[in-house]
């Protein structure tokens, strides 16, 4: 029987080529999907992304609230006038108001009335206390319109020189504490996210190694077909990228959903005991726009990190085969 090797031409009959091409149009993946424990990995990625996304959201809310507190406090200073023997305190308060209004950057200044002072002290002294019988300091609230041109040290010096019993409190201690607390929260959040991402990377490394062990025959065949390591790594990377996208999307969506539910639950508690304190702390409990952006960026980062980790793990394992 005469055997003829087929000629390598590209002018083969189109119908035959088209038939064969129909097989390859949806070419099967070289690494079989069912040979990788994908469901488990997607679940792990979703959980990690959810936790990281939730952390981003919570830190964003706290950071925004801390900014608001610092901004509110930083927009005013207080002049305290202590009662001294032989000094008419009301005159000193009036002088302090007039003095403060002369300073650049000051939007206004006013002394707290007796009634306002009484209201401030009510939690400690009880209602209806006659303050005239007590040596209670008087306060002048100075609003700052333009913080850049306002010189708090100059005001403090002027008050010290011209107002008897007067001193300035710029709330620097509170601002510093708030700033330190907000920074601590942000660093704690970054630390938590880093730990979660490290755990995610380790999970992907283990899953990749397991996938390689389960596909050793495929890798051997690819090797003797002349596949380069990057080609083999690419086959695994493609599968793991899909797992990363799926798990990251599920986890990110759940994190945003959890925040929406938390906002709805806190909003729904308006009027109940404690609700006013929560609102005082956090303002209207809603997620800043940047948090949505960060969670979306997290989803993309998780998918890319998953793919990159699997690629590096495959290449490292292949190098170790020699």
């Amino acid at each position, binding site marked *: 029987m005469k*055997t003829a090797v087929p000629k390598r031409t590209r002018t*083969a009959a189109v119908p035959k*080529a088209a038939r*064969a091409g129909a*097989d390859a149009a949806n070419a099967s993946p070289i690494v079989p999907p069912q040979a990788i424990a994908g469901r488990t990995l997607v679940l792990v990625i979703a959980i990690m992304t959810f936790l990281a996304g939730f952390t981003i959201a919570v830190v964003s809310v706290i950071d925004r609230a801390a900014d608001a507190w610092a901004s509110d406090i930083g927009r005013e200073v207080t002049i305290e006038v202590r009662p001294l023997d032989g000094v008419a305190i009301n005159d000193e308060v009036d002088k302090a108001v007039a003095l403060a209004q002369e300073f650049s950057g000051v939007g206004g200044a006013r002394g707290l009335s007796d009634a306002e002072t009484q209201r401030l002290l009510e939690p400690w002294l009880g209602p209806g206390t006659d303050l005239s019988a007590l040596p209670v300091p008087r306060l002048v609230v100075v609003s700052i319109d333009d913080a850049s041109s306002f010189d708090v040290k100059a005001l403090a010096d002027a008050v010290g020189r011209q107002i008897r019993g007067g001193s300035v409190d710029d709330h620097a201690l509170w601002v510093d504490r708030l700033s330190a607390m907000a920074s601590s929260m942000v660093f704690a959040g970054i630390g938590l996210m880093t730990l979660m991402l490290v755990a995610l990377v380790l999970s992907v490394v283990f899953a990749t190694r397991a996938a390689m062990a389960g596909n050793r*025959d495929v890798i051997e065949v690819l090797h*003797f077909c002349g596949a380069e390591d990057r080609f083999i790594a690419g086959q695994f990377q493609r599968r793991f990228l899909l797992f990363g996208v799926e798990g990251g999307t599920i986890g990110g969506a759940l994190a945003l959903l959890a925040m929406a539910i938390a906002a709805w639950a806190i909003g729904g508690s308006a009027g109940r005991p404690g609700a006013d304190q929560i609102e005082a702390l956090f303002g209207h409990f809603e997620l800043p726009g940047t948090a949505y952006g960060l969670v979306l960026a997290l989803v993309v980062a998780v998918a890319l990190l998953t793919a990159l980790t699997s690629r590096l793990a495959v290449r490292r394992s292949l190098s170790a085969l020699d």
Partner: protein
Amino acid sequence: MIRFENVGLRYGTGREVLSDLTFSIAPHSFQFLTGPSGAGKTTLIRLLFLNLKPTRGLISIFGKDTALLRRADMPALRRRIGVVFQDFRLLDHLTTYENVALPYRVLGKDEASYRADVADLLDWVGLGDRKHVYPPVLSGGEKQRAAIARALITKPEFLLADEPTGNVDPPLARRLLRLFLELNRLGTAVLIATHDIGLMDQLDARRMVIEGGHLEIYE
């Protein structure tokens, strides 16, 4: 093209399974590699396609000393060698067509550029009507032919076949032998490892006989 000089191989600290192998394989040549089971035929084939490194001696493949090869250089050399394994090594989750086309996919070629070649080769080995089928459904002979087609699809310069007729009946074995001869006629050097004396007697070709790790060559 291929040159072995005093090549020895041992696994771990055991005895040498191959000792002092010295031979050459010329371009366009045809040879059988034979010997009893366990004599070292498959080990020698693994050395020939860079799957093993020798313990001692020199192996030169396509003019390159394999001891000096970097890992990144190996794929390019392996692409010039086609291998047919005794156990076929077909991927069960790919169709016959996809298995045969695998070397082209590895090369990153567009499917349209090799579609016709693969279809023609499948027709040529008698698997034209089995290209949609997955390997677990193929018979032993069909798997063997699919494995051969995969090794031939990129027209390698050197073809290694380990017991390529071990799972087929005599008529098909003769047909496969003709297939290898035709390939050789077109310029590919062929080495067939077999212990089928009948197959070797059909052809006046060089015989490399390996026994106890030592090689005798009968030109």
